[in-house]
């Protein structure tokens, strides 16, 4: 063991320690600053419960839509060669790197009352601005790429031989997809779902700009936290703690679920995709 190698290892440890400290201190601070009593008080507040209920409903609907439409879309991207495939992949990943304010402006410009297609939506009585549906629209927009990316990677990581074997044995495309591809890729799909759900749960900027903030209708937990920040910092901390706990629980569940599935293996995915393949799943917000 040369001194240089020890120094390099030490540098790596320093880097990791700095990362872990920086990334955990704010989360720890939330729990240190709010006692369990504060937390319960925060939850007893009816407006906090309204926000939690709305957040859970909207994120569930949004992730449901994302999984239903995104799974077949990701399968196509993962298994078919077609002209413009790289462009399509880039386009669906673009919202990952958009600032939430840009997402909000974009949604208004598209679906707002004065937007590209918003006028037509209004004529049909489907104007989503300032409605709960608008919250779901904003959540789907910002969260879908997280799922699509992960699902595409998971499908790409499936060993072709399994699919070929399935077809050789007489199963059709649909059957192979449903009975082989999805179960095999389930770890990756669940990871993508959790990432999308977490992103949706934390969505703030696009929701505020596109859907506004109204208790019980469009005020999700992040908006409620922001509203409390000025007047009731302890209440804001308590709600934040609830959000952290929820997100951590989901992340943990996914880690446990995903560890047993080949499709969910991070290593397999990265080997297949290679280092030059664009953004990491966590780059966007």
């Amino acid at each position, binding site marked *: *063991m040369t001194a240089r190698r020890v120094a390099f290892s030490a540098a790596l440890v320093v880097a990791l*320690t700095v990362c872990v400290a920086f990334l955990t201190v704010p989360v720890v601070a939330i729990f240190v600053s709010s006692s369990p009593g504060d937390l319960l008080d925060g939850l007893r507040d009816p407006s906090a419960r309204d926000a939690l209920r709305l957040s859970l409903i909207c994120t569930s609907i949004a992730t449901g839509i994302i999984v239903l439409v995104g799974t077949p879309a990701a399968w196509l991207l993962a298994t078919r060669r077609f002209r413009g495939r790289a462009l399509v992949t880039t386009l669906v990943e673009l919202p990952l790197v958009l600032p939430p304010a840009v997402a909000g402006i974009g949604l208004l410009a598209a679906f*707002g009352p*004065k937007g590209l297609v918003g006028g037509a939506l209004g004529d049909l009585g489907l104007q989503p601005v300032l409605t709960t549906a608008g919250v779901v629209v904003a959540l789907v927009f910002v969260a879908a790429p997280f799922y699509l990316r992960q699902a595409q990677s998971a499908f790409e990581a499936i060993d072709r031989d399994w699919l070929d074997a399935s077809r050789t044995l007489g199963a059709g495309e649909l059957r192979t997809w449903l009975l082989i591809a999805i179960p095999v890729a389930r770890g990756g799909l669940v990871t993508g779902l959790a990432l999308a759900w977490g992103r949706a749960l934390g969505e703030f900027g696009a929701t505020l700009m596109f859907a*506004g903030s109204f208790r019980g209708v469009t005020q999700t937990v992040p908006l409620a936290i922001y509203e409390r*920040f000025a007047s009731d910092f302890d209440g804001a901390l308590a709600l934040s703690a609830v959000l952290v706990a929820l997100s951590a629980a989901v992340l943990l569940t996914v880690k446990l679920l995903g560890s047993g599935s080949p499709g969910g293996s991070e290593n397999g995915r990265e080997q297949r995709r290679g280092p030059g393949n664009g953004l990491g799943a966590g780059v966007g917000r």
Partner: protein
Amino acid sequence: MLRPLPRRALLLSTVALAVLPLAACGDDDRGGGSARPDVTIKVSAAASLKKALEGYQGHFAAATVAFSFAGSDELAAQIEQGVRPDVFAAANTKLPDALHAKGLVGRPVRFATNRLVVAVPAEGGDVRSFADLGRDGVSLAIGSPTVPVGAYTRTVLGRLSAARRKAIEGNVRSQEPDVAGVVGKLTQGAVDAGFVYRSDVRAAGGRLREIAIPDALQPAVTYGVAVVAGAPHRGQAQAFVDGLVGPDGQAALRAAGLGPKP
């Protein structure tokens, strides 16, 4: 196939982690002591002051000014959490007075007034008078209860009969964290009308039209400004505040549609 980490590496990294912050602190101390000729002061100001203060900035020579515009309540909460801008300018007197009572800012100065108005899109729209606000199908955006514009709006509504107040409250579709949010919802056509300041209608440059709120309902909208206790650039901050109540500041406020100091 993870490789073991050599024990000596752990030891070395521990030493490095202990020494690095100390070195960083040392640098900091040296940098803080040197006097720089052109200073930048940070001004936390109510969103409704954006146009006025950016106009005043052109006449203020003592320092470069970096603004942080947001709801006055958010800015006050930041100061309570230990953020130290040089100047705090709020759309009411309550917030700076409260911070002064806690010793967080110097004595507040009342430097401007404003009028609460109902803003509607310049063209089209169903809302033509204050009485229209409670009609069925009208959608409204107002400030959240903690931001001054939202508090003033509630003062106005509180002076109405219970029936009229309920009708208007029932039409509210969004409670925005600052007045800029209300203006945004209006200019995007997301709502038919909103409660904003007269200066916001002026700043919207023809996109919005003002419907006056009857005098009997009008709240007293007074702006307070103070130098923050422990401001990094006290002298320049005081000059900024003094200038605001002087001719240059008052002219900039007037140009932006605000009223003079009370």
